């Protein structure tokens, strides 16, 4: 059986951000990765706090929560919520597109052509609006001190 020959990844990590005329969706893809990595990092720390510290009893738990209840951690938590809202809704958009929803019916390639990006764009815009609305709701809660 012939061995699979890998193509050289010549752009490396910089290709994530720039490799020519990237469209909006490509930058959403980059943001999807960055928020995913950020959420994973946070999840590991969160898991440590809610397992290692929680199992040691009330005193350690209360001391941990007291340490975390300050403005910087609250701002950090808001950023985590924002990253989650973005990652979840952008992920939903990607799944819908992967399954063929919201792409319209196939049409013959007659001028003026409608490329895939233009067909996907309304869903992209709708998701961005929804993301902004949800982030505003969480920001409201953050701002009135409910954290």
């Amino acid at each position: 059986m012939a061995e699979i020959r890998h193509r050289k990844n010549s752009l490396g990590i910089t290709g994530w951000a720039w490799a020519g005329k990237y469209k909006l969706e490509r930058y959403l893809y980059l943001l999807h990765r960055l928020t995913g990595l950020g959420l994973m990092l946070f999840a590991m720390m969160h898991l440590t706090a809610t397992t290692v510290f929680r199992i040691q009893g009330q005193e350690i738990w209360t001391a941990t929560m007291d340490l975390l209840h300050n403005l910087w951690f609250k701002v950090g938590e808001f950023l985590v919520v924002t990253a989650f809202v973005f990652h979840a809704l952008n992920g939903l958009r990607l799944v819908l597109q992967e399954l063929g929803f919201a792409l319209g019916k196939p049409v013959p390639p007659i001028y003026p052509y409608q490329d895939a990006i233009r067909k996907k764009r309304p869903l992209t815009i709708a998701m961005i609006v929804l993301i902004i609305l949800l982030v505003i709701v969480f920001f409201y809660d953050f701002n009135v001190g409910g954290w």
Partner: protein
Amino acid sequence: MVIKNTYLQLAQIITGALVGILLTIHMVVMHLDAILGFFGIVNDTSWSSMMIRARQGIWAGIYIALLAFGLFHALNGLRNILMELNLSPRAERILTWFMIAIGLIFLAVGTYVPLALLGK
């Protein structure tokens, strides 16, 4: 370990959807205090409030399921990114087993604590 990437991608989509649902419940309950408080629902991070949730099987189930699906989704996502580095087949196998090992360690620790707190 030979698992077709198509199945991993399908699992990535399914776990993504499940994490989205479970994490939304967690986020709303833990981070919309002011809005939920308006409706008389009180949830905070105090020991007493946390223990009330910890003693309920439904919450233990939600957290363990969230952890399991979240770990798969996160570690498989990270593996997908690292696989773009065009690793050799041997390096791919090492990476896959490393992700499985990390996932199992976090799953074991993260499952033990909710189960231990259930009986307290």
